[in-house]
């Protein structure tokens, strides 16, 4: 009998019926009935008629079925346990109260689970605390340096203005006369203010202490749109003439800390640099100027420049740039238009003043000036971005640890989970519960992480070099940081709970109940994810260790740089007579007296005065002209110059290579003499002997070169060689903030107190000097190399520890899961060392695959580091091999212990355990 091709009803109509009728026997039988009738009709009247009939009936049945359903009369066999009048819900409903109830249950259950396994919970919380804490610390830095609002009005309309001079950087300061011209001649700013920052001696009721203060133009607060919290700010007429308006606005924190938030502060007299000032206002809370790294304690107007600043800028000169500028653009003027406008101004000025040719007026947003200028801000951004990447890696490694722990726990709890599943809990319910547990863990880790973050910040603070006035780490732990911490903790919780959750979602749970199959196959599934996670940890750790290696080598290279002086046992004593109101003669005499007194102290081999000690905080440039040298049209003759007392070169250990050093004979009335370094000699006396040559420098005086010193480092350790001019203090411009350098016979720290008391006895009104040993002093110049090396090194080690713990944990868990298998192998004749080798080989496979991936990532990461490295190839083989070697060694050790345990498994015990 040939098989008949039975006519089929239209698929669309069938679909309609399926959609509208509840699933079950009734629907199936209705479909069968209609199909039967359709077949009969097709035989009698043909398939088209039958199809039409079917559609009509399908519509009728669907319509009736839906109608009855709405009336609560579902088609189907009556279920005595159900209320026949109720329409059953279609699919999952979202029930808010139900969900909250679940959450509360999950949290309680999760907490119980965590407490049941205190060991693994502790490891997880500590791992997360370290990972999150590192992120909190770095983000606090980012917040304090770059994100914290400046609290000025409409910061987007405010602009930082720099003067770029030929031969110097783009982002230079501006002289007072140039500032006045910019202000008068510009068309684009509604206000243009100036400010400078300097250490000042503030004395309220207590003894004077050194604080940061700012000298500002009269419209500074108006331009920034900042109103006083108490009293008033400055007025434009308070800007000049000099010494006429001794008024001061206090910072809010200073008013609180130094004056106890005294409501009667207005009108009080306080002393700044031993000069009386009247308090006229208090700045609003949260306003701390435009620099992230300095929070001024006070502001005073430009008319008090001479009194407030420890040096005397030349307000009549266009070549003494000492002011930073900020402007507020007119409404509707964009940054591009402002730039164009100032370009025109610059070229107009160049037309009038030939000396201003090649100058540029550079405009940037306020954020670019947060660290003094876009160069410094850019550098900080790069460093912080790198550190964020580093701590991000550390957190990932910690997350992977927790994920592995969660996986191990889930494997152990598979029976419990399978039971819940079979009792009706949906997969999604179980996953939600696991994620709640891991998030709870992460929230604990996050809380502890804030504590770790605070400790880390304190550690970073210790890396900060000392300066005359402490520059605190501007790390702000505010709501932004807390929000980021919370987000990190939640993300970490979800991420680390994903691995076991994904396992649960695989539809093989019922097998777990039956416990069939040897442990071998059970371990495979979860084991693969664990191995992947550990491999990932190894890769990330390798990147960090390699980076640390590169930075450490760079640091070594930096420390090995010859600074050009040889003073190992010595002290630097800042002597700023600017903190008291000493006229030039008094100041010079005071400096001389102190030098004489300290030189003869027991324990002091020699002492000298200098305007600048190399590698200090600042060291300005100076215009000179050299007789017989014609500068090129574009060439600026700028050199760094110092003023020193006679014993300077001997005290500092700076070799004199030709001629003689400055000595006692070079007095005020004698022939003005100078010394130059080798670079200056080569540049300005090419092929000639500079000795007896003449240089026009300070105050227009002409100096005769008497000696040449070896090149040294003056600004930073990594700078290229620069020309350097040294003049006797007696024959050069007076410098109020000089430094005393002391060479000691024994331990320099022992001399700090005697020298300090000597200074205090000479000048009791001045704040005590912050005396530094030479190594401490040099930390400032080494900081840019030391800080990244130490931080990445520490985080790299942390990552290594976390990854080793992870590897050990996974290997140990793996071994314990495979006890049965090892027992069988040993029982069948395998040796203990054979099993040990097998386990180690498994561990080695994970480590090596992680290292391959990690090496590739490290190659990319090293390019990012390139800018921070000094004379180190980003692909330096030693760093790469070193990192890999350490990782391999530690990894093998972490695998060795579990391997040992596996080799010692007693076959009979293991087999019985299964």
């Amino acid at each position: 009998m040939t098989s008949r091709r039975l006519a089929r009803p239209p698929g669309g109509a069938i679909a309609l019926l399926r959609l509208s009728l509840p699933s079950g026997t009734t629907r199936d039988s209705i479909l069968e009935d209609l199909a039967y009738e359709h077949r009969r009709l097709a035989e009698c009247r043909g398939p088209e008629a039958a199809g039409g009939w079917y559609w009509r009936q399908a519509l009728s049945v669907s319509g009736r079925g839906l109608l009855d359903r709405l009336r609560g009369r579902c088609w189907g066999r009556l279920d005595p346990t159900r209320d026949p009048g109720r329409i059953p819900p279609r699919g999952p409903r979202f029930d808010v109260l139900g969900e909250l109830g679940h959450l509360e249950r999950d949290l309680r259950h999760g907490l119980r689970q965590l407490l049941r396994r205190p060991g693994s919970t502790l490891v997880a919380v500590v791992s997360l605390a370290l990972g999150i804490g590192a992120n909190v610390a770095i983000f606090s830095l980012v917040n304090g340096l770059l994100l914290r609002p400046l609290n000025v009005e409409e910061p987007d309309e405010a602009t930082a203005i720099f003067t770029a001079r030929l031969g110097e950087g783009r982002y230079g300061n501006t002289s007072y006369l140039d500032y006045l011209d910019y202000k008068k001649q510009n068309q684009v700013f509604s206000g243009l203010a100036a400010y400078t920052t300097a250490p000042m001696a503030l004395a309220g009721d207590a003894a004077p202490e050194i604080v940061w203060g700012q000298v500002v133009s009269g419209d500074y607060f108006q331009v920034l749109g900042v109103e006083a919290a108490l009293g008033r700010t400055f007025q434009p007429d308070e800007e000049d003439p000099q010494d006429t308006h001794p008024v001061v606005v206090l910072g809010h924190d200073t008013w609180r800390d130094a004056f106890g938030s005294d409501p009667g502060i207005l009108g009080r007299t306080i002393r700044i640099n031993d000069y009386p000032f009247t308090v006229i206002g208090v700045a609003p809370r949260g306003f701390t100027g435009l620099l992230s790294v300095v929070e001024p304690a006070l502001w005073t107007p430009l008319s008090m420049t001479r009194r407030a600043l420890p040096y005397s800028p030349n307000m009549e000169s266009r070549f003494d740039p000492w002011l930073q500028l900020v402007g507020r653009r007119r409404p509707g003027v964009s940054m591009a238009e402002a730039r164009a406008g100032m370009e025109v101004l610059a070229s107009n000025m160049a037309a009038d003043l030939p000396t201003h040719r090649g100058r540029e007026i550079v405009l940037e947003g306020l954020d670019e000036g947060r660290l003094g200028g876009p160069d410094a801000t850019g550098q900080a951004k790069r460093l912080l971005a790198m550190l964020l990447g580093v701590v991000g890696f550390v957190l990932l490694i910690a997350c992977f640890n927790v994920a592995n722990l969660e996986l191990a726990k889930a494997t152990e709890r598979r029976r419990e989970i399978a039971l819940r599943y079979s009792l009706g809990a949906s997969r999604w319910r179980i996953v939600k519960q696991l994620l709640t547990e891991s998030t709870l863990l992460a929230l604990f880790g996050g809380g502890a992480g804030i504590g770790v973050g605070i400790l880390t910040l304190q550690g970073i603070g210790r890396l900060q070099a000392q300066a005359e006035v402490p520059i605190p780490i501007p790390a702000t732990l505010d709501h932004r940081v807390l929000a980021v911490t919370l987000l990190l903790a939640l993300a970490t919780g979800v991420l680390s709970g994903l691995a076991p959750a994904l396992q649960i979602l695989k539809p093989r749970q019922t097998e777990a109940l039956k416990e069939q199959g040897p442990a071998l196959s059970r371990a495979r599934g979860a084991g693969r994810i664990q191995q992947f996670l550990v491999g990932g940890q190894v890769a990330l750790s390798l990147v960090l260790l390699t980076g640390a290696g590169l930075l450490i080598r760079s640091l070594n290279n930096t420390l090995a740089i010859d600074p050009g002086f040889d003073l190992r046992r010595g002290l630097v004593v800042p002597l700023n007579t600017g903190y008291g109101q000493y006229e030039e003669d008094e100041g010079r005499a005071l400096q001389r007296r102190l030098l004489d007194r300290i030189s003869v102290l027991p324990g002091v081999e020699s002492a000298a005065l200098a305007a600048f000690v190399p590698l200090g905080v600042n060291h300005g440039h100076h215009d000179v002209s050299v007789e017989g040298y014609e500068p090129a049209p574009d060439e600026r003759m700028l050199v760094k110059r110092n003023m020193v007392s006679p014993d300077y070169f001997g005290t500092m250990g700076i070799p004199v290579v030709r001629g003689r050093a400055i000595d006692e004979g070079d007095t005020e009335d004698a022939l003005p003499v100078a010394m130059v370094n080798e670079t200056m000699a080569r540049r300005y006396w090419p092929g000639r002997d500079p000795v007896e040559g003449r240089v026009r420098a300070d105050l227009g005086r002409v100096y005769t070169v008497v000696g040449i010193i070896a090149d040294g480092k003056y600004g930073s350790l990594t700078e290229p060689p620069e020309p350097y001019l040294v003049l006797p203090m007696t024959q050069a411009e007076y410098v109020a903030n000089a430094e005393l350098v002391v060479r000691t016979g024994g331990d320099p720290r022992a001399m700090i107190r005697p020298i300090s008391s000597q200074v205090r006895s000479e000048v009791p009104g001045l704040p005590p000097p912050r005396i530094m040993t030479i190594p401490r002093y040099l930390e400032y110049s080494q900081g840019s190399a030391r800080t990244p090396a130490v931080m990445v090194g520490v985080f790299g080690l942390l990552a290594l520890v976390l990854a080793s713990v992870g590897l050990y944990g996974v290997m140990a868990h793996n071994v314990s899961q495979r006890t049965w298998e090892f027992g069988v192998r040993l029982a069948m004749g395998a040796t203990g060392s054979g099993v040990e080798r097998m386990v180690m080989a498994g561990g080695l496979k994970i480590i090596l695959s992680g290292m391959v991936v990690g090496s590739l990532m490290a190659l990319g990461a090293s390019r990012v580091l390139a800018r921070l490295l000094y004379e180190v190839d980003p692909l330096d083989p030693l760093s790469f091999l070193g990192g890999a070697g350490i990782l391999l060694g530690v990894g093998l050790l972490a695998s060795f212990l579990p391997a040992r345990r596996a080799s010692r498994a007693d076959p009979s015990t293991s087999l019985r355990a299964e």
Partner: protein
Amino acid sequence: MGRMGFIGEFEQVVLLAALQLKDNAHAPEIARTLEEDAGRPVSRGALYSTLNRLERKGFLEWRIEASSEDGGVQPKRRFSVTEEGIAALTASRDMLLALWKGLDEVLEGPSS
């Protein structure tokens, strides 16, 4: 769980058709009986809705039989009238007969 009450006209004819079909009372046969023997067109929606209603009232019940056309085993429902259903039909008939009494001249005899 039945309800002693009067049943609607279409419900009556469905029950009567099911009784007539005896062991062959599947939904398609009931529909054919109504359409061909009683001469009234039946939409399947109305039919299945009524079958459902009669089951809820306890006048009808069904059992699953497996049919094996088209190469597979498909479920088919075979309906049977319950005792309550028969009692309801009887009550309906008696009520109609009582109301029809004395109206033989008005109502014409059965058409042949």
